[in-house]
């Protein structure tokens, strides 16, 4: 029997089965389609409802009249529980969040992408398996453990090697965050490189490209969007991380002047203060407003990345 014959037979039997189908089965199929559809749009619903909830909690102070948005954004005076003069300015924390994230990315992106390229293109199968398992293990370490390492081990190392006055600072937080986002960048970056068809590699080799040329000129451009997604998820992890930075950055409201200064991040501030802020007080609402701010930051980053990706595709 030839291959063509067997596919013919399959087609026929499939048609017969479909014709014999009872009504309940068709109904079941319809229900399943609806269910999957709901699953699909649920992500949008969740994101929207989270945003609405966070915004609803923050709105009264935003439109209350006695609150200045520009002061909130551009003042570094953060005195939420003062008994004399309450001030809510998050500028120092915005600066803190950006400086720690930027340092973490400066360390994590080259290491992460380099490791992804090595794992996917250069190493043998055995090394590859070991590396992948180790990297995935690295991703599974809880963030509070990272924070603890930052507070105890890393802080001592930094004081010894840099002579800094205090070991919990941007450098510490940046290194810890980089260690946390590297595994994500590696595993997703490696998937992106793996998704480049082998015919590209074969064509490159056939044209006499060296391995380096192959990676630089063929694979990286072909896997651009996937690699960008890997970096973005890494950024997301770094911006959103709370416990580790809370412990490793020193949690000081302070506009940093050097890499060895302590800072406080927006996320850590919410984590440290929301528990005691009396519900519906100004302090509580301002903390939710910080949540809205974080939401906006992530949204803008994602949107920008999306536009970049689309720009790449057009070319």
């Amino acid at each position, binding site marked *: 029997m030839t291959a063509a014959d067997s596919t013919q037979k399959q087609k026929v039997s499939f048609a017969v089965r479909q014709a014999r189908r009872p009504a309940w089965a068709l109904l079941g199929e319809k229900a399943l389609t609806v269910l999957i559809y709901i699953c699909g749009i649920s992500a949008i619903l969740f994101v929207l409802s989270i945003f609405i909830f966070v915004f609803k909690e923050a709105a009264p102070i935003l439109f209350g009249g006695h609150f200045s948005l520009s002061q909130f954004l551009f003042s*570094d*005076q*953060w*005195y*939420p*529980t*003062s*008994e*004399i*003069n309450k001030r809510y300015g998050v500028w*120092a924390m915005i600066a803190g969040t950006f400086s720690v994230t930027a340092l973490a990315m400066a360390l994590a992106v080259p290491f992460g992408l380099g490791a992804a390229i090595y794992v996917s293109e250069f190493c043998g199968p055995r090394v590859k398996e070991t590396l992948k398992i180790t990297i995935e293990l690295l991703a599974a370490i809880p963030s509070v453990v990272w924070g603890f390492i930052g*507070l*105890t081990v890393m*802080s*001592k190392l930094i*004081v010894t090697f840099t*002579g800094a*006055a*205090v*070991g*919990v600072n941007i450098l510490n937080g940046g290194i810890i965050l980089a260690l946390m986002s590297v595994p994500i960048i590696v595993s*997703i970056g490696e*998937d992106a490189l793996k*998704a480049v068809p082998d015919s590209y590699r074969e064509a490159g080799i056939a044209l006499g490209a060296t391995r380096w040329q192959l990676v630089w000129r063929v694979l990286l451009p072909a896997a651009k969007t996937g690699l960008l997604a890997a970096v973005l998820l890494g950024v997301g992890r770094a911006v959103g991380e709370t416990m580790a930075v*809370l*412990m490793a950055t*020193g*949690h*000081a*409201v*302070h506009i940093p002047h050097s890499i060895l200064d*302590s800072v*406080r991040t927006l996320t850590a501030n919410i984590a*440290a*203060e929301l*528990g*005691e*802020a*009396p*519900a519906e007080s100004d302090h509580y609402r301002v903390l939710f407003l910080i949540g809205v701010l974080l939401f906006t930051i992530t949204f803008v980053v994602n949107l920008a990345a999306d536009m970049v990706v689309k720009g790449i595709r057009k070319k």
Partner: protein
Amino acid sequence: MTKDRLAVILAVCCGAALAAGLTSGCGQGGGDAKSGAAKTTIQNKGSDTMVNLAQAWAEEYKKLAPDVDVEVSGGGSGVGIAALIRGTIDIANASRDMKPQEIEQAKKNTGKEPKQFVIGHDALGIYVHKDNPLTEITIEQLAAIYAEGGKFTKWSDLGAAMPVGKDEIIRVSRQSSSGTYEFFREHVLNKKDFKLGSRDMNGSKEVVELVANTAGAIGYSGMGYNEPGKVKMLKVSYKKGEPAVEPTVANTMSKKYPIARSLDLYTLGEPEGAVKKYVEWILSDPGQKVVEASGYVPLSPEQRKK
């Protein structure tokens, strides 16, 4: 790829939820079968200064009353008091007094008036690195270091000679939900605000830990967290010229130490049943022995419950 990951995450979440449901179901069933009566759980939350102490009580009490579970968590006095106001816990630990508006809120929310039990005392220690040449400090100097607008930023301002490059005073403080933070603000800074830029640690232990690792640091924390050999507790006086007092048990009991405070438990209304028994046990000799073992100052014999 991302879809796969999502599926995995979903599966894990469902699994975890299922497992949690199963174990909690089993737990209750098991308890009933064994003792014939449901286990009593006391929810206890609040002060970080007292979290080790509260844990020690819970463990000690377990030996006496195996059918009572005391669940202890920290977060700061403010967190414990906020939970008491919401009525979600039985006992709040606090290293500061409840404020009048907090008592008002608790009454409004739960219909019960919070009841305070003083269970011991603490000398708020001023910690510096073990190699710091300073041995004593005044409240005025502390305010000049910590308060907004305070002038002192260098150890040389205090007359302490530090090694080159370590002259900057590294201020270590607490997060604003901490009772210790509020106590310090009220009694040392005289209700003024803290200078921005202090390293605000999330626990009493972290303060001592950071001071031990940082040559130019100064911090404040409960006396129970002292680690001799790694950090040094300074003697404290009100003003220059007055004799400085060491933070010892005797000096705290005699109220000679300037920044001593009471450690409190708060319940909603008069405690009943298991909670009442637990609080009474804490106020009796065996409970007070735990206070002493945790490094704090116990109640005097006449203040204790017989």
